[in-house]
């Protein structure tokens, strides 16, 4: 006879559902500047508090405080601000374009712009980023041509992916931005292999890979962590914890019991938990992990704690699964507003400059969208049919050639 209740399972549930008051009480944060900054060569075993802390640099008043405050030139900060603002204008324009039927699909990065813009500027030329689909600010920070993005999103004849890949699953290898895929998790493995190859070459280039909180549940995440740990691969592995994997809150991936940064502990990898809406904290953590990797001390796992302000994609309606005012209640603020306040506090920026930049970027996006529209939007002036038969292999074989003939496509 047993004197215990019958077995039952725990099913994680979000803290607030539609109509309820937003509740982020499950996240407890140390004050900005409070997290310690271990030396980059510190053994992992002496840093096991870090995954449960939170690296924050920007204080409420815009000052950069504490040991993680990085030395960044104001010009670099302005570039970061510009990239994040450009991303937001671009997202808004393209999201609207979807409603107008100009593209089939879009995903916004709103709220998460710092997690990609800051690494883009902290990495060195030749390093390689293995991104997720919410990281267009990485490309914006490197002045990637908006035309390439627009033409892919509109799927016209100038699409650099030639009509073969979804809108916004970009490839920009020359910009240190590896091909995106919607099959989440695979990039962790590719990044580790790329980093191992860099070490084989005795090079000094490192890789940086991103997955979302939901993808930490994938086998690829763990296998890549094993490789990164075993070989001390020069790679920075990042989890962008934006609280939501489509409509599944981060607890479904295991974030309720521990932090995603703490996943590193089981692999002997340092885990840093970072305020993802704090441009300077993201920049500083990236630099720390990059220096450690370049010093042959191997991989770091970084969790960027942020919030996905928009829906997962144009196919998603977040009002069905979370309070509509949840974004406003997010305790870590807006990355653009926070960096702007910092630059103003430094005396390196002003409201007037900000407004002028906003107007200029708005116009830049409008012009790029108009140029793309002139080339064609969804269904108009599409890539030629022959694109289906090229790049399947380096050289088309008889199967490609025969099907091309059957489609009556001239070589």
């Amino acid at each position: 006879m047993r004197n215990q209740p019958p077995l039952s399972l725990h099913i994680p549930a979000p803290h607030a559902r539609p109509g309820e008051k937003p509740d982020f009480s499950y996240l407890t944060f140390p004050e900005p500047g409070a997290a310690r900054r271990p030396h980059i060569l510190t053994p992992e075993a002496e840093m096991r508090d870090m995954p449960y802390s939170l690296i924050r640099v920007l204080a409420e008043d815009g000052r950069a405080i504490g040991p993680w405050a990085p030395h960044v030139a104001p010009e670099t900060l302005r570039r970061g601000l510009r990239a994040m603002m450009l991303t937001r204008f671009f997202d808004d324009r393209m999201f609207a374009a979807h409603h107008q039927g100009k593209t089939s699909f879009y995903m916004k990065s709103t709220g998460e712009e710092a997690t990609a813009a800051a690494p883009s500027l902290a990495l060195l030329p030749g390093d390689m980023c293995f991104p997720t689909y919410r990281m267009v600010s990485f490309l914006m920070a490197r002045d990637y041509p908006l035309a390439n993005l627009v033409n892919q999103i509109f799927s016209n004849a100038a699409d650099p992916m030639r009509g073969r890949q979804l809108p916004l699953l970009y490839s920009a290898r020359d910009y240190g931005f590896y091909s995106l895929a919607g099959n989440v998790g695979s990039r962790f493995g590719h990044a580790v292999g790329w980093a191992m190859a860099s070490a084989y070459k005795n090079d000094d280039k490192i890789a940086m890979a991103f997955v979302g909180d939901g993808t930490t549940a994938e086998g690829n995440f763990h296998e890549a962590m094993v490789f990164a740990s075993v070989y001390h691969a020069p790679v920075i592995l990042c989890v962008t914890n934006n609280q939501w994997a489509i409509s599944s809150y981060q607890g479904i991936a295991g974030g309720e019991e521990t932090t995603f940064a703490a996943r590193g502990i089981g692999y002997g990898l340092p885990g840093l938990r970072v305020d993802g809406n704090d441009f300077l904290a993201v920049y500083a953590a990236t630099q720390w992990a990059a220096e450690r990797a370049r010093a042959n001390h191997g991989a770091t796992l970084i969790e960027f704690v942020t919030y996905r302000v928009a829906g997962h994609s144009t196919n998603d309606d977040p009002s069905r699964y979370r309070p509509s005012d949840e974004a406003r209640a997010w305790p870590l603020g807006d990355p653009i507003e926070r960096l702007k306040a910092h630059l103003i506090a430094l005396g390196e920026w002003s409201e007037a400059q900000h407004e002028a930049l906003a107007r200029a970027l708005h116009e830049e996006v409008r012009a790029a969208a108009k140029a793309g529209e002139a080339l064609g939007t969804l269904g108009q002036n599409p890539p030629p049919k022959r694109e289906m038969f090229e790049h399947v292999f380096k050289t088309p074989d008889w199967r490609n050639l025969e099907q091309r003939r059957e489609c009556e496509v001239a070589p």
Partner: protein
Amino acid sequence: MSEVKQLNVVQAINQALHDAMAADPKVLVLGEEVGDKQEGGVMGVTKGLSTAFGERVRSTPISEQAIIGAAIGASLGGYRPVAEIMLMNFIAVPMDMITNHAAKLRFMSGGQTNVPIVIRTMTGVGFSTGGQHSDYLEAWFAHTAGIKVVAPSNPDDAYGLMRAAIEDDDPVLFIENLPTYWTPGPVSFQKVKLGQAKVALEGTDATVVAHSRMVVEALAAAKTLATEGISLEVVDLRTISPWDRATVLASAAKTGRAVVVHEAVKQFGIGAEIAAVIGEELWGKLKAPVQRLGGAFAPVPFSRPLEAAFAPTAADIAAAVRKAVTA
């Protein structure tokens, strides 16, 4: 090397890897147990490579997704990795890496990226290794655009196809047959172009199209049939994807009879595709219906007598050819 040597398949592939690594510093080898401290692979195919080439040969954890993922990443970094997935059934683990990434990256990146990797794997019935260690799964990959599939039947082709596969700029799956690993044969150390079949035996009455160990069975069947006055032509595909349609059709047109044989399960196997094409192209010119022989529609059994009944044999092939000739 221009001289001809007697080697078995293990030695031939080992020599091919050795020669490729010596010729190109960008060739890497990775996989479970491939280093000499781990005895150079479970069957010794990679023996001596880590001693000769040091860090370029990497024994890995048991992480098939990470093995293929790392190979893809290293290829992006300018290398030509040869990744071993020890047994073909284990390839189910990294299928996403192979079919969604390695095979598609060139296409889906608009041509920015290519993945020049070779995936070595061994398989085959005959050693009582059971249904989770014996399957021929070539059809899964022949059905995927963007990856080539190679399966040699003898040491000479094993050498030549491996050298060509490593030099190829697209991903190549290289299937090795376990039970014929130690069968010796002459090796001429010449590269064998991918996509080209070989007429392993010339004949006039019927054509058998086969690959890997089934070529050995077909050649044995040909000996028996010769004593009965039946002249069999054997086409060794060597490359399954892209398969050499021209050579197969020329042979079938010449003999007027075709039997397609593979060890993989018959249903939806590559024999169905080849038989269909022969039928489409040679309609009205054949003297008998195209036949297919393949493994049973069941997992490969462990028990020796059951396992022996799983795959086509020389006797099965001879019987099918007799049926065709008397049709």
